């Protein structure tokens, strides 16, 4: 597990660990059944209090992402919880605000952002534009 924490981040350290573990699970870098680094080892690796690691793991366990098997360690659950739609909608809104401010700062208009989004959508769903299209412009 490659985690990196930053004490002066807006999020407390245990939340940073939680976020990075769930991101690793979402991105497939951690799969069901994978073993997580032990409390003690992670606390020494990251140079943070053991209780902070415990708190992060406890919360992840309560949310259903990981489970502790006594004497064996902590593992990613076989069946993972479904994402929270409301929370994700909020996150998307926040990302949208960031995207728009970046675009406006760069002097781009709303329509140009929509165009970029449409192109991004096409790239994701049908794959990148074929070279001929570019050549014909």
């Amino acid at each position, binding site marked *: 597990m490659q985690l990196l924490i930053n004490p002066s981040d*807006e999020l*407390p*350290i245990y939340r940073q660990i939680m976020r990075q573990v769930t991101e690793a699970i979402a991105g497939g870098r951690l799969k069901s059944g994978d073993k997580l680094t032990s409390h003690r080892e992670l*606390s020494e690796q990251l*140079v*943070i*209090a*053991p209780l902070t690691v415990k708190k992060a793991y406890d919360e992840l366990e309560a949310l259903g992402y990981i489970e502790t098997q006594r004497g064996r360690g902590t593992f990613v659950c076989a069946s993972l919880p479904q994402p929270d739609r409301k929370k994700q909608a909020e996150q998307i809104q926040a990302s949208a605000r960031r995207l728009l401010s970046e675009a406006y700062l760069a002097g781009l208009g709303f329509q140009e952002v929509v165009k970029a989004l449409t192109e991004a959508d096409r790239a994701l769903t049908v794959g990148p534009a074929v070279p001929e299209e570019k050549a014909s412009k």
Partner: protein
Amino acid sequence: MNPILEFHNIERAFRKGVPVLNGVTFSMGEGEVLGLLGRNGSGKTTLIRIAMGMLFPQAGTVRVFGLSPGGEPVAVKKRIGYVSEEQVLPAGASIAEMLAFHRYLFPTWDSALERQLMDRFGLSGNSQRIHQLSKGQARQVALMCAVCHRPELLILDEPAGGLDPAARREFLETSIQLLNREGSAILFSSHHMGDVERLGGRVVLLDEGKVRLDRQLDQIREEHCVAMIPRSAVPDGATLERLSGCLRVREVFDDWHVVFQGTPDAVRRELRGSLGMNEVRCVSVPLEELFVELVGGERMAGVKS
């Protein structure tokens, strides 16, 4: 759980009428980690010295393991480890002599832990004398002397003060390892908020002789926020001070910076409800910013005549 350290209404002044500590009360339990914060001169070291029995309080009581540190110093000190920034080890003594002395003083001395730390710190050529060591190495020797008798309470007074970032991190790594292996309680004072965040646990903030804040670090981080309000919108700081959850109002150029206990959402609701203000910028901040907002001075725009 029995408290291992208790301060009750501690008062102490060094000049008449100028109290450094003016009624400080808190206690800590077994295995607890507690960071003591405050500006220079806020009384952190004074309080720690009172716990060590090096100073007497002028009023109030202090108990360590239920005992008075001034009345039963040996019984108390046996169970404490102490490292401070100002600690002076005898310059002419060698590392080996320092360790032999402490080994002789403490019957519970753990030689295996001593060897482990020696290897870790790379101090094995221990005929070196204290004055030949770097500041960081001398602090490592002090830490070894403080922990090898496996104290139940480790007191660190600005232990990383004056160390470079790498030496500070090494010191922190060792403290974390001790926390993992020994589970001893730690009372530490520090100006490095990043280190405080790493050690976690509880935070007690001293200000103007009193405990200004006493909560778990994670709660402080998640249940406090700073609202920035234009002074044109609220001409009077006292109006803000009366709001529920308000801990501090500070003038920063053209704005008020207001520290609230509460989540940003809850505080925005409060501001909307009581002052009819919408869209107030309200953010969670790291400990360092919160510290500055709580005990930092006012920052005026321009010089007022």
